[in-house]
């Protein structure tokens, strides 16, 4: 198309008022130049998020045995006996755990979680490493092998930010690079991560433009860029109007 877009503000506005088609085009080109990369990142990351099934991202097909009923036994320790032996109890739960032949008492106390054999009354938390390895394999529904088991004590990786430590990290050698996080006292599966979740997280970071914590949707960078992008999108629509009118004329 002929004619250089005017650059001086006064001429720009004058030209825009006289020839709105020109203004919409100029606006759209220059805003696209400035915002193009982010606009492209938005559609690419948005595309990934809508196309990949969210349940798969959450790792639902990767795990099993998430609830295990407490095994039936003829006799177990009464709740009152458990209360007498432990202090600062905020909650008592009787439950099962994969691989356990007996029901277990899980106590939430002021000092954290305590796990007790409900038949003998013996405390089994924190769980032994071998026990955690067995648990990890029982939670895991994939075909890989348990590659590494690490107790995280001081530093939580970004992918489980906000969760209290310590936690066991169980890495599997499958193509999804599955990781299960297991509570060292309760033996519960806390969360799971895999390759596509990690990509999702990166795309999410790019989508909300919070490059540190990946959680703050109210950051100023996002606010400013989104505002200007609104003009980009609006000018594009405006341009669509003119570009179709021209064909008819």
């Amino acid at each position, binding site marked *: 198309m002929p004619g*250089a877009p005017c*650059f*001086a503000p006064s001429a720009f506005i004058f030209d825009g008022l006289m020839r709105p088609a020109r203004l919409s085009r100029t606006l759209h*080109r220059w805003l*696209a*130049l400035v915002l*193009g990369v982010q*606009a*492209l990142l*938005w*559609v*690419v990351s*948005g*595309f990934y*998020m*809508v*196309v*990949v*099934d*969210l349940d798969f991202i959450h790792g639902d097909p990767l795990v099993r045995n998430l*609830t295990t*009923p*407490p095994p039936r036994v003829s006799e177990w320790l*009464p*709740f*009152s006996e458990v*209360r*007498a032996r432990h202090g*600062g*109890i*905020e*909650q*008592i*739960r*009787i*439950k*099962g755990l994969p691989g356990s032949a007996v029901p277990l008492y899980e106590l*939430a106390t*002021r000092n954290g979680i305590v796990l007790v054999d409900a038949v003998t009354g013996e405390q089994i938390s924190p769980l032994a490493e071998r026990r955690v390895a067995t648990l990890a394999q029982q939670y895991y529904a994939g075909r890989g092998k348990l590659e590494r088991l690490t107790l995280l004590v001081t530093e939580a990786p970004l992918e489980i930010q906000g969760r209290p430590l310590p936690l066991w990290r169980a890495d599997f050698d499958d193509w999804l690079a599955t990781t299960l996080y297991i509570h060292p006292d309760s033996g519960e599966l806390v969360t799971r991560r895999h390759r596509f979740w990690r990509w999702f997280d990166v795309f999410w970071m790019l989508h909300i433009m919070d490059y540190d914590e990946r959680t*703050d*949707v*109210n*950051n100023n960078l*996002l*606010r400013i860029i*989104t*505002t200007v*992008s*609104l003009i*980009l*999108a*609006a000018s*594009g*629509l405006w*341009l*669509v109007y003119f*570009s*179709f009118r021209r064909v008819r004329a």
Partner: protein
Amino acid sequence: MRTMRILHKWLGLIVGVQLLVWTLSGLVFALLDHHQVTAQHSIRKSPKPVLGAETRLREPDDWLGAYEGAALRDISLVPLAGDWIYRVRLTDRTELRRAEDGSPMKVDATLASRLAEDLYAGAGRLRRIDLQTETLEARDAEGPVWRATFDDADATSLYFSAADGRLVAARNDTWRLFDIFWMLHTMDYQGRDNFNNPLVILVATGALWLGISGGLLLFRSFRPGELNLVARWRKQRSGASP
């Protein structure tokens, strides 16, 4: 490049309005304070009560016979509105029993009101309590819920599970506004949360091609020298005053 131009133009026509809606709703998300949206400030954070030695406990052995044949998941002894109760989770439902005598109990309107007033941290007062079976606001909860409505400025509502009295959602007008734009953003006009729906996938595919074609066109649309703003500015000035 002509193909790209036609593609960009037609996709702009078809996807353009939704792209504008996405940008606008994205701006709303960025502007609305997320803490306000989650309504967490309306929930009181009080220390959890400790199970005292004087609390009377009727052991599950005495009443567990009632669940003969049912598939048990777990039994928890938990505090609820100042009392201790057993929460019996079965695979298909949850039931509550008083800790002191093991008798069954239900979360009725009175208990739900007590729970709401105990947990609410705002300036308003409880105005209504009603049982709802299908709600958009507490859509993550399973089964019926009690809705407790407060008369504060942001019209806060707390939702409690009718099965076990647990707080399942906290909503206010900021969240309600957010949620309308969330629906527009996910293009799930029924459940609002499913962003894997066919419509949004279709439109997002269009938007992806709009972006790619736009990027390619952008490369071609600028002439060499046009991006050198300083030189153009100088030229314009010298041209204006010969």
